[in-house]
């Protein structure tokens, strides 16, 4: 447990969070390598199945990163993503996984520092939660 390094999947919107991750890189801001980024055309494109499959494949935590309120490139994909995340959190609870392992965050393209901060905070949160019970069983 002491050496536990969580695997975290971040579904990042091309127009905001993904660019923010780039920005964090350009600014030489460190963030944990535990976070594996998957670029999506809009956070609203993320499907419940993408999230459950990530957990099935061994993720300890997942987050969906969309644009700030009212800033979605496709009008309201970020709000749809937020609703989806709540829906999947309830599903995870039914399955027997902690819903805290899934989160919705909002970042603008210019917020490299916020991207790095969120990546660090979520990594620490999942580290405290411990390994996903799915992975423990599978291993």
């Amino acid at each position, binding site marked *: 447990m002491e050496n536990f390094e969580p695997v975290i999947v971040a579904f990042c919107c091309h127009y905001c969070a993904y660019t923010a991750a780039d920005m964090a890189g350009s600014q030489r801001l460190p963030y944990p390598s535990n976070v594996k980024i998957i670029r999506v055309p809009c956070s609203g494109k993320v*499907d*419940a*199945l993408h999230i*459950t*499959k990530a*957990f*099935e494949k061994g993720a300890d935590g997942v987050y969906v990163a969309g644009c700030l309120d009212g800033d979605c490139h496709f009008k309201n994909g970020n709000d749809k993503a937020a609703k989806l995340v709540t829906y999947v959190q309830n*599903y995870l609870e*039914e*399955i*027997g*996984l902690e819903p805290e392992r899934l989160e919705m965050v909002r970042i603008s393209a210019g917020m490299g520092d916020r991207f790095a901060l969120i990546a660090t905070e979520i990594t620490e949160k999942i580290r405290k939660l411990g390994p996903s*019970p*799915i992975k423990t*069983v*599978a291993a």
Partner: protein
Amino acid sequence: MITAERKPLEEIIEYIKPYKRILLLGCNECVTVCAAGGRKEVGLLASGLQLAMLKSGSSIEIREHTLERQCDPEYVEELVPMIGSEEAILSMACGCGVQQLATRFKDKPVFPALNTKFMGGSLSQGVWDERCKGCGDCLLGLTGGICPIAKCAKQLMNGPCGGSTDGKCEISDDVECAWQLIWNRLKALGQEDRFLDIMPAKDWRSGGGGGPRKIIREDLAE
């Protein structure tokens, strides 16, 4: 369409617990439209079941498939060459589909993954409401296209009860009084006179009161 909702995962797991290999079967018709049992929902349920099983330390092989329609024997027949080592079928169709499978595959246990709800329509994305009770003797032509059987909690036939206040039903502020809606509609159509026609007591034999119903079209039946 026929609307449905997924059963709680716990109940579904209880059904399939004894089996190692199951067929999870969706339906491309009504339950796809109401986002309860189409191909997408089949995938999500399979993933959820897989996660729940892994968590409890057991394993299950889930084969996913979605039929064009589960309530027609022609489509169900497609499964015959497919079903082999699967020990049970978990159906994501409405009750009609589940029963079609149970009739065709007599040696396989068939379980429902959905609770079939009602015949309804879509109000807006993600919202469905009840529209028809299948009473077998449609009254909509007399009531301005609003059904007092499906929409009135008491299924009254001749105007509202005393529980109608400001257009709302006494059972909840979220429920509109069907007879208020009918009156508004008849008024808009200039057919207020219709309201005064007395409707006789309904014969419920056509609505299921006479036992299970069947339609036989002699020109089509073989």
